[in-house]
């Protein structure tokens, strides 16, 4: 029996040459340091790959039921959520494993950056990694469109409007993006093809290059202060290092497997507890109250362009992301030698801290989006009682005008309402009656954030509104006009 198996194995090996190709790959040595405790830093790349595998599995599963047609996609999503056994779980897992993949890719990149692992001779490994990051983000963006709810529809609208700003080629790009003159079935099919065929193909090719380069260049040794990279002596040093190396396939891989298993359990738990994301309402463009939000990996960009001055906006939409991508590609070409240890590279460490702080703050802003008016506040948010309990009839009239003219959509009272303009709970102490009239009539000078209400409001409405607003001041504080005298 044993002999039979052995001869069968030989039969295949003569034809497949595994012992010449795959076996050396599995047995090739890696630096001893990478297999020690420092090896825990090396687990994020393999975890990204594990989650990618999960994405492929759940993606194929979802494609068995999902219908990429504008008139049926939404129904097929509801079917997945409520009828298909565990369809809700597959949808949830596809979302959270995808999110996890973005997190792992970023963690992997950060580790590689901090350990200087992108330096000679691994510059191209880094570049292939940047392509993988872009593919991962591309999958996230196109996947959101397949959810085919109002967020998907208006997300396409925003994407189209951005593409439409490209000088000259704008209209052609819009048509290329939407697959036609309107947002419709062709747009969905287009994003389905991108999500299922085009980007996965690019991702797999980039991954193959990335892995081949990892094997070709060998696993990097953990950085040691004072032992920088010198391209002239690097290969000899690395060979020396490998003499006391450990096999790649073995205990060195144990940490990767351990961490990948943890990552899988984490995203499965998230999916089981939090459930699938959307779809929200049916994709009816005439439903009011649309307020599209990009998915979380893009909230920082959403915030950045919302906070930017209108003059810089087209630049931030069109050029800034390209500059950012170019900067990522250029990292290993700016510095590909010298120190690798984070303790000797304060600028690198500081950049990571600053970049994460910046992106974190922008993401928070994007998630809360204080620049968006609250479209239902004018009728939905009552005036806080404390502000009107001592009001005169005229001031009460003014309060009604304040709500009716939808001021509340942008101006909060006691922090309830829109946050696009300032909270007006104390405005009476800040602005005189004349200043209030000027502000309301003319809006922000030069057509800034506040519209001019001059033609939208009658003199009677204006006088009661100003009476109400100047009554809004902390107890015991006199109106701004009187204190100015």
């Amino acid at each position, binding site marked *: 029996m044993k002999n039979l198996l052995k001869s069968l194995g030989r039969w295949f090996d003569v034809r497949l040459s595994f012992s010449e190709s795959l076996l050396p790959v599995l047995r090739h040595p890696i630096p001893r340091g990478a297999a020690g405790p420092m090896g825990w830093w090396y687990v994020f790349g393999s975890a990204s790959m594990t989650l990618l595998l999960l994405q492929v599995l759940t993606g194929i599963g979802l494609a068995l039921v999902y219908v990429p047609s*504008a008139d*049926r996609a939404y129904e097929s999503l509801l079917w997945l959520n409520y009828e298909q056994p565990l369809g809700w779980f597959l949808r949830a897992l596809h979302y959270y494993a995808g999110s996890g993949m973005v997190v792992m890719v970023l963690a992997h990149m950060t580790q590689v950056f901090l350990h200087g692992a992108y330096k000679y001779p691994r510059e191209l490994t880094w570049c292939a990694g940047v392509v993988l990051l872009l593919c991962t983000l591309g999958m996230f963006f196109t996947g959101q469109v397949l959810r085919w709810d109002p967020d998907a529809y208006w997300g396409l609208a925003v994407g189209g409007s951005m593409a439409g700003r490209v000088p000259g080629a704008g209209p052609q790009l819009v048509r290329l993006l939407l697959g036609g003159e309107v947002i419709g079935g062709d747009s969905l099919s287009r994003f389905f093809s991108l999500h299922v065929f085009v980007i996965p193909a690019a991702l797999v090719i980039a991954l193959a290059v990335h892995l081949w380069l990892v094997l070709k260049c060998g696993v990097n040794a953990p950085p040691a202060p004072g032992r920088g990279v010198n391209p002239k002596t690097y290969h000899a040093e690395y060979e020396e290092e490998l003499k006391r190396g450990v096999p790649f396939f073995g205990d060195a891989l144990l940490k990767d497997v351990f961490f990948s298993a943890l990552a899988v359990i984490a995203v499965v738990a998230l999916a089981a507890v939090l459930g699938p994301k959307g779809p929200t309402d049916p*994709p009816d*463009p005439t439903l009011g109250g649309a307020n599209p939000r990009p998915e979380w990996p893009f909230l920082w960009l959403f915030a950045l362009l919302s906070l930017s001055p209108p003059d810089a906006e087209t630049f931030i939409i069109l050029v800034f992301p390209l500059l950012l991508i170019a900067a990522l590609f250029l990292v290993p070409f700016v510095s590909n030698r010298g120190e690798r240890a984070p303790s000797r590279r304060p600028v690198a460490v500081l950049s990571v801290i600053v970049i994460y702080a910046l992106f974190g703050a922008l993401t928070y802003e994007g998630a809360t989006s204080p620049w968006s*008016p609250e479209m239902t506040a004018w009728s939905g948010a009552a005036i806080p009682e404390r502000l009107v309990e001592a009001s005169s009839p005229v001031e009460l009239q003014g309060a009604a005008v304040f709500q009716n003219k939808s001021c509340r959509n942008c101006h909060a009272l006691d922090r309830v309402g829109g946050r696009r303009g300032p909270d007006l709970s104390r405005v009476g102490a800040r602005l005189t009656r004349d200043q209030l009239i000027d502000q309301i009539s003319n*809006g922000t000078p030069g057509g800034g954030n506040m*519209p001019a209400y001059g033609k939208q*409001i009658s003199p009677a409405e204006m006088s009661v509104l100003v009476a109400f607003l100047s009554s809004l001041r902390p107890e015991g504080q006199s109106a701004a006009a009187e204190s100015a005298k």
Partner: protein
Amino acid sequence: MHETHDVVGNDSLPSSPAPGRRSFFRILTGGLSAVASLVVAAPLVEYLFGKRTREIPWAPLGALQDFPLDETRQVTFDNPIRQPWDGLVSRVSVYVRNEGQDAAGEPRFLVLAVNCAHLGCPVSWFPQSGLFMCPCHGGVYYADGERASGPPPRGLFHCVWRVRAGRLEIQAPHYPTLQDTLDEPA
């Protein structure tokens, strides 16, 4: 040795044709490959970037008396520019305002696309304040569609309208963007 043998012109060897024949075959192969690539690439490019040319259809919005003077009404209709399988997304809204009559006594209408000129989000009409407001970044427009405040670089997009047999019609709207508006398409 073998090579020099060739140069001397031993044509009888089938495995080593004369240099003239070989380079001819090289050029021929290159040319054929180029033609093969072109006849595949050209249709693909046209398929991907080609634009169907046809007359823009007109969409009926309703009888003239449905639009009271100086009031803004939201009208929803099925966009004739659609695929048969578009489903709900072919439902499009526009804002219609009856602006009375011009000097010649002809009816005057203002038909505005709902898409904000900033990034395309749908604006809402607030009749009490006479303003359109965009939920995304707070763009605001007056009743005539002109920009009032916020980030939009221009006013709302105007649809092309006409009156036929007592009914208001508009040219089926494509998705309007800054360089491809509804009254001045790219």
